[in-house]
């Protein structure tokens, strides 16, 4: 035993000098493996932060599938004029045809090419998803965080409005609003989706803000003379990146589904080619009865896949601010 012990001691690194100063902390160097200490310089630029975030999401297999799916849809939307064989509103073809080399997915009862409509339709869904998702998240961040940080009367007022939007059933409100604003086109749909979609995110962000508010570094910022605005947006906000990213993808998913729903109900602009309006026209022309199931199936599948891709990406977002989830695989 003594022999073993001796070897163990022999391997020991040089005992540190009594270091009463925090300056030379021996264990820090080993834990960081040197890497943490060597990396000195300007704080990382926003671009590298973004790159690292993307890398983290990419490293989760589920999220990777989601990113690839999303990329396919985004590319289809951007390059629709190049990819689509015909113009989406070109109704010069034979009506209600089945699949053929000229029209792989057939034509609609109005005589338009289904594949071209599908490709052009992705433009509306991707655009609405991104813009409305962004809008809803923005409102959620602004209201949720000030709601979480302030106390007293102002918080009560916000509380009232958020609860109001939470208890009103979303779809009926959306339908009523859309019916009122008939003819507003895409902007109207985005507006309606944003108005009905921000409340839940605000609620989630508020509770996280409240828990961060009681942390010492927030008190310390108050002692540094920071204004409330700066504390909320420079101290608290960056600590909630993953929550906000997650809430964006959630809101975007909801927006895509809502847009399709509204268009399907005929409350959108029925002249505009979107997956929802394709479903609307297919339903109107009894596509199932005439055996043209592709007319219903293809846009439905696209909506489902786009929504799924965003949900899959959200699995990777969890790892952004929680390193423990990144290491979870070993269990």
């Amino acid at each position: 035993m003594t022999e073993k012990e001796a070897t163990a001691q022999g391997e020991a690194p040089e005992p540190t000098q009594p270091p009463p100063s925090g300056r030379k902390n021996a264990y820090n160097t080993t834990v960081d493996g040197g890497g943490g200490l060597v990396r000195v310089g300007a704080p990382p630029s926003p671009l590298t932060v973004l790159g690292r975030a993307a890398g983290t999401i990419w490293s989760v297999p589920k999220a990777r599938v989601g990113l690839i799916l999303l990329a396919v849809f985004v590319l289809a939307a951007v390059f629709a004029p190049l990819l689509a064989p015909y113009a989406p509103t070109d109704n010069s073809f034979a009506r209600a045809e089945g699949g053929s080399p000229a029209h792989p997915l057939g034509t609609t009862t109005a005589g338009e090419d289904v594949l071209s409509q599908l490709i052009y339709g992705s433009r509306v869904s991707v655009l609405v998803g991104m813009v409305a998702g962004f809008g809803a998240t923005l409102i959620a961040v602004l209201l949720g965080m000030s709601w979480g940080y302030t106390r007293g009367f102002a918080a009560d007022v916000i509380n009232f409005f958020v609860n109001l939007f939470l208890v009103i059933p979303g779809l009926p409100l959306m339908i009523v609003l859309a019916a009122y604003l008939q003819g507003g086109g895409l902007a109207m749909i985005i507006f309606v989706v944003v108005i009905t979609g921000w409340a839940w995110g605000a609620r989630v962000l508020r509770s996280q803000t409240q828990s961060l508010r009681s942390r010492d570094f927030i008190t310390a910022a108050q002692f540094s003379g920071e204004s409330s605005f700066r504390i909320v947006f420079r101290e608290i906000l960056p600590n909630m990146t993953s929550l906000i990213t997650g809430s964006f993808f959630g809101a975007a998913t909801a927006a895509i589904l809502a847009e399709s729903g509204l268009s399907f109900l005929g409350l959108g602009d029925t002249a505009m080619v979107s997956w929802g309006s394709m479903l609307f026209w297919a339903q109107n022309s009894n596509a199932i009865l005439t055996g043209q199931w592709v007319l219903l199936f293809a846009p439905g599948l696209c909506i489902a896949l786009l929504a799924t891709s965003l949900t899959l990406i959200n699995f990777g977002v969890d790892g952004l601010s929680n390193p423990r989830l990144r290491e979870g695989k070993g269990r």
Partner: protein
Amino acid sequence: MTLLDVQDLSIVYEPHGAEPVTAVRGATFRLEQGEFVGLVGESGSGKSTLGFALTGLARAPARISSGRIAFDGTDIAHLDGEDLRRQRRGGFAMVLQSGMNALNPVRTIGNHFADIFAAHEHVPRGRRRDRAVELVEKVKLPASVLDRYPGELSGGMRQRVAIALAMSLDPRLLVFDEPTTALDVLVQRAVMETIIELQREENFTAILVSHDLGVVLESTARVLVMHEGVIVEDGPAARILQDPQDDYTKMLLSHYADPRAEVVELPGLRVAGSQISTTGEGPAGPGTDAAPSGGAKARTGRTREAVVLEGVGKVYPPPRRGEDPVVAVDDVSFTIEPGDALALVGASGSGKSTIAKLITGVERPTAGTVRLGETDVGSLRRAGLRRLRRDVQMVFQDPYSALNPLHSVEYTLMRPVVNFGGLRGLEARRRVLDLLDIVGLTPVEQFAAKLPHQLSGGQRQRVVIARALACDPQVIIADEPVSMLDVSLRAGVLALIEGLREQWGVSLLFITHDLLSARLVTDKILVLNRGRVVERGETAQVLRFPEDAYTVELLDAVPQPGRAAD
């Protein structure tokens, strides 16, 4: 009889996407049946990792890379799942640091015992209740706790329950991982005594993992000292105390002192009578010659004012309807003259943190007045509070939560300089670098660019202190500034605080439960018990010749390696 035989054990952490780190290297030791052994080391030394491995609780990303752990002849290092679970009965158990938070809040204590008995089926159904009563009585709790929920018990009681739960499988080896660290000073001592007694009566083998060499030397017979994953010293407690072999052990021992002694000395700090001085060798002490000019300039034109509390009381409304209101502070009066240092000591719940909140204007007193010079702090509104913070700054207890993890040191220090100092651009930056120099974080350029996670606890606390100094305040309130730091780092931070006070003439309110640090940096002391002042006077006088029973109790709770030898 050898119960545990550890041979050349190494444990590595293999985090996903990072370099593996060896946390324990070649640990080799043997434990006899009935031994009580202390395992000491500072944070990051690998002591908890070793403790977890010994009880088969090592989990990914930690992995036993080599060596064997023979428990009563069986190698448990490579046992898996079910075999390990069976081994736990009559085998090994662990009491965690946060064991008191390990209880399920929606189940009664009795249910916790029932779960264990049901999982191992070693106690017949009819006997289970009796057995549970027996166990809680062993840890000095009444049988009635079995019908209560964890939330209804105090921290100390919950930790006792955790110990009783660990005992319920009749373990022959019990590992205590910092069993008292999360508890209040006075409770700490009581729980520790129960553990010692229990070990003596039941004669199980026990390992006490702790960062506090004082506590370990006081309670155990044999001590293993760990440093950077290696066991550097292994010997009887008395021998380690009198004749430490390893430099690291010697260094740890040098950081203990008796606050009652006439001369108290830690590396870098020395107190004789009521004279405090920072000795030259202390690397932490900011050299007087290095007085930065930027700070001295800011000093001019400001008068120093005293903090005066007169008959201050704070009563919180009752937590539940029908209960009595909570009296946090009751009729407290004191004055901190400019440049003075006052210690406020007491166990948790004694109202010392409430007083800090009253002085900083976070809370308003319900009786009496708090004044800084002519300003009545209690009546300040938002803008007034902001002005107050120019003069009254805080150093927080936990350096890990007091810095925003996403901001660089430079940003953190820049904010008060910009907000209060009115400096911009290069000037502000120069002031930031000055501040870093003052608190001894050199080379300053490098430290300015770092993020909090790249700093050690002691370095973080220095940044916190630098931030408090940034606006050149009159009063600094330090709320347990060293209690979260490793013992060897404490003296450095204390010397820094002491040096700053001497050099800048800042008044200091030093809130702590640790009488040794109070003795080291303050000249006046106020002992609080349940919101009332029970004793006051010169620090040296009060601590050397305490009059109140409560002060004596607090003094007894200070761990002293020397006491074991008596």
